[in-house]
Every structure is written in structure tokens, then in C-alpha cells.
């Protein structure tokens, strides 16, 4: 199947998401809440594009729009730019000092929003990706709390969570680095809790928390090299493979 994005012919598979097709063809669409590992969040609305089919034009979020027909797509039409600017202005009102939002503002030539009373320290845009990440880990330590203007992401009762393993998946996926995570002197501080960091048995670098390590061992078995950091684990796997082929 072939679709046209901003005048460029692009090869597409049935059901493939517009954003993925655009990216494969080097066409830039701004995103915040999209993560390749956790697709389908679609809450930031930044990735909107215009899809044209005959006389029908509509605005869709490209990160969750599957291509099923040969359509024409505009990622930067006047209408899209105008709408996207509004979205960025709203995001700016929410997280005015955030570096990622600031960058978007610059990209779209927007000034800092002054119409609203803002919280200068706020960085979270409430996309909910962190909550998803935690669910995906199977932990469910955080969730969205309250609603409307009081909505936020937190642990139950804003306390140190009794289930959090300090893996940091939430902070890792956060598009605006809104989650306070700090590793200091072998201790990780996250969600009002402190975790003991453990060192990789090969390279000796701190790489995760004891709780995370234990959890992975329990879930996937002892023999999966959870005492090694990501890098050393990959290396070990590579060496093992090489050994196999030598025989």
C-alpha cells in the first residue's frame, strides 16, 4: 500500500500507524506521550495530522491512527500548525518551565503563556505514561489521583508505596522528566521511598535496586543473569552465543 505524507510517497503496511510510517520516511511529527515500548497512550495530542480521503479531511492523532486505505496526509498544514500551537500553549500553561515544552515553544515560535496562573515548578503534563509503565512492570504502585485541576500522579495517600520496587520505569518513560528520581551514594530516592542500589557483578557499576533485582529473579528465574547490568548482560549473552557457534 502507498500513502502520501507531505507530498512524499511512502510505503505502508495495512494497519501500520501513521506516526511509524512518517518516522520511517524521515518525516518529523512532534510527540510527547508516545513510547515505542508502550504505544497507544495518545493523551498529549501533539502528534495530530490531517488525513485527506477524497473530499473528506479530518484531524487524527497519528500515533494511534492505523492506515487502512491509500490516504494523503499533511503533518504541517496551516490548520495543523494552528491546532498544534494551541496544544503547546496549553501544555505550557501546565508545565511552563519544562525544558521539553520550552523547546516545543521555540520550535513553534510561541511565547510563554501569561494568561493563566501557573505553577512554575510543575513538569508533569499528566500523559499517564508512567502509570502505564508501572502497570506493565506488574507493580501498580502509582496511579492518577483526583480529577480536574487537582489531578496528579502519585502513590496511594502520597506515602512511600509498599509495593514499589524502585525500578525507575516510570521516570524512564516520562517525556518531560517530571518524576523525581535521584541516585546518591548507593541509594535511590523515588516516590518518597529509599532503595538500596546494587552493583553489577562484572563491571561494578550501580545499576538497579535490590528490590527490582529480587523481583526479576522471582519472575523470570535465577539463571537470567540479574546480577549483571544491562550492558554486561548483553555481552554475556553474546559471548554465550559465540561459544555455541564455535562448537
Amino acid at each position, binding site marked *: 500500500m502507498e500513502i502520501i505524507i507531505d507530498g512524499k510517497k511512502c510505503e505502508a503496511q495495512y494497519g501500520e500507524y501513521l506516526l511509524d510510517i512518517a518516522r520511517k520516511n524521515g518525516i518529523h511529527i512532534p510527540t510527547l506521550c508516545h513510547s515505542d515500548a508502550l504505544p497507544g497512550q495518545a493523551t498529549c495530542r501533539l502528534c495530530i495530522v490531517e488525513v485527506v480521503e477524497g473530499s473528506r479531511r479530518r484531524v487524527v492523532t497519528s500515533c494511534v491512527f492505523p492506515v487502512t486505505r491509500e490516504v494523503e496526509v499533511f503533518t504541517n498544514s496551516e490548520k495543523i500548525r494552528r491546532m498544534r500551537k494551541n496544544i503547546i500553549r496549553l501544555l505550557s500553561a501546565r508545565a511552563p518551565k519544562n525544558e521539553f515544552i520550552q523547546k516545543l515553544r521555540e520550535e513553534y515560535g510561541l511565547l510563554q503563556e501569561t494568561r493563566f496562573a501557573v505553577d512554575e515548578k510543575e513538569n508533569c503534563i499528566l500523559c499517564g505514561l508512567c502509570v502505564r509503565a508501572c502497570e506493565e512492570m506488574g507493580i501498580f*504502585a502509582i496511579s492518577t489521583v*483526583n480529577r480536574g485541576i487537582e489531578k496528579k500522579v502519585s502513590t*496511594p495517600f502520597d506515602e512511600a508505596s*509498599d509495593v514499589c520496587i524502585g525500578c525507575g520505569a516510570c521516570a524512564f518513560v516520562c517525556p518531560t522528566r517530571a518524576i523525581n528520581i535521584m541516585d546518591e551514594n548507593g541509594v535511590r530516592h523515588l516516590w518518597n521511598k529509599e532503595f538500596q542500589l546494587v552493583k553489577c557483578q562484572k563491571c561494578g557499576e550501580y545499576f538497579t535496586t535490590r528490590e527490582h533485582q529480587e523481583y526479576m529473579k522471582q519472575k523470570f528465574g535465577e539463571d537470567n543473569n540479574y546480577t549483571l547490568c544491562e550492558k554486561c548482560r548483553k555481552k554475556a549473552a553474546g559471548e554465550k552465543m559465540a561459544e555455541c557457534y564455535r562448537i
Partner: protein
Amino acid sequence: MELKDFSYARTILEQYPPERRFLLAILQDIQKHYNYIPRPILEMLRDYLDVPLSKLYSVATFYKALSLKPKGRYVIKVCDGTACHLKSSQSIIDEIKKVLKIVPGSTTGDGKFSLETVNCLGSCAVSPVMVINDRFYGRVTPSRVREILEEYGRLENEQTWK
């Protein structure tokens, strides 16, 4: 009914099969019985339904009808919807504030009254409207507010006399 006694919560829970789809119904029943969702019961519910505490907390903080802080025995809801607003519901709210010395969203020190504002109770024809627990009051005026509240005062005294 002893408020600190959470054992009745078991009875509430067991009226429902341990399935997630009953989550909200159970929370509503708990809210009704205790006037709030006590934390130990939220934890009990977590174990009963096998739902993460974070999810329960999310639901409990989302709905206005649920509260994690104890509400008064009498929950006063003053409608501040469009019709009631035009019929000066604000003067009613002000009057209640004056009499009970609480602001919307809070509870009197003795745990007797909570004050809330809501958006349209569907009785605009008799606006301004106020509800105390399950009783409706239409065409409320500031002077009637005092009368009504006094009724509840007396009611309370009668109960404690027994």
C-alpha cells in the same frame, strides 16, 4: 452504629462476589455506611477484589460522591447550578457558612455537618435547591436556612437524650 468499628465492612463486601466490576458499588455502600471510605477498609477491599491499592485510591479520589475524609452525619448539598445560581444560591451558601462556620468542602468540628456545592440537582423549577442527606428543600431562602438547620440541631439533641 460505631464509626470506628470496621467489621461491618466485611458484611458489605460479602454481599458482592469478589469481582472488579462491583468495585464502585461496594465503595458507594461503604461511603453510605461510614460516611467516608476508611483506609483500613480500602485495604480490605484491595485483598477482597485483588485490585492494587493505587487503583482503588484512584477511583476513591476521582468521584465526588466518595470521600477519604470522614463526612458529617448530615451532608448538606447546596445546588450552585445555573438556575440556582441565578436564584442566588450564593446567599444560601453564605448563610450556612455563617451559621455553621464551615466552607464548602469541609465538615464541622463535631462531625455533624458537611457542606458541599453541587451542579444542578435536576429540580431547577424549585430553585434554589438544597439537600440534606436524602431530603430535598426547594425555594430556600437565607432565613429558612436557619430554621432548617435548627431542625437538625434539635434532632441531634433528641437522639443524645435517649
